[in-house]
């Protein structure tokens, strides 16, 4: 009993010192930098898990969500993707490459006048469906398109 109490106190003391060091900036935990990076969604290997991490399950199709992507990408390392949401109050757009090792590539949140419109260039490992997911007024919409890749984006 007494021994346990001592251990607990010791542990508390040690972590207190550690917290102090962290606060003083002596130790810099690498994870702290990107604390608002959605690790669960980005490190998901399955589409469903990635969507769940985004809170974007059960998306409905909507013609007002438009994605522009090349039908055939000669270079999978640089595939230009444009997503435009004409849905009012679009607050979020995420782009997923279904066949990539980690499907979620990027996610953008819009505020204060930013339109639901984003263009990016992605690596696409192999011919894959690319899906864009948008959130507007708490509802989730998606659209998708297949991109054929002749040279993969993940090799040397």
């Amino acid at each position, binding site marked *: 009993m007494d021994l346990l109490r001592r251990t607990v106190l010791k542990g508390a003391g040690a972590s207190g010192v550690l917290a102090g060091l962290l606060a003083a900036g002596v130790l810099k935990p690498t994870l702290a930098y990107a604390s608002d990076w959605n690790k669960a969604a*980005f490190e998901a290997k399955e589409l469903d898990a990635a969507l769940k991490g985004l809170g974007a399950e059960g998306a409905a199709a909507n013609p007002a969500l438009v994605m522009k992507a090349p039908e055939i990408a000669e270079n999978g390392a640089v595939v230009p993707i444009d997503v435009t949401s004409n849905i009012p109050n679009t607050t979020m757009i995420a782009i997923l490459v279904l066949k*990539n090792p980690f499907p979620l*590539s990027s996610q953008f949140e819009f505020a204060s006048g930013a339109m639901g*419109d*984003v263009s*990016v260039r992605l*690596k696409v490992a192999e011919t894959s469906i690319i899906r864009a997911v948008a959130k507007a007024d708490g509802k989730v919409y998606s659209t998708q398109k297949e991109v054929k890749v002749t040279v993969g984006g993940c090799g040397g």
Partner: protein
Amino acid sequence: MADPMKIRAQMKGDVCEIRVLMSHPMETGQRKDADGKTVPAHFIQNLTVALNGKTVVSGQTAGSVSRNPVFGFKVKGAKAGDKVAVSWVDNKGDKRTDETTVA
């Protein structure tokens, strides 16, 4: 320290088009070098675009965004002379902020 970004912000009608070119290797952590060793992951995780100090776009990215990434955004309610600031932070804690004015 990474190289400066190239930022262009231009009014097209009442919409401000912002394009950003960042200089970054964007290593996925999946690639192997000539000796068969895995190249450690090194990619931008967070980016923000601010108009006159107010965040308009906040993005999160993975290693599957291309090397030297290019992003395009559109913002309403901007005018010529407004200040556009773009920042990023990568998974190693490197960061960079650059500014331009709306043309």
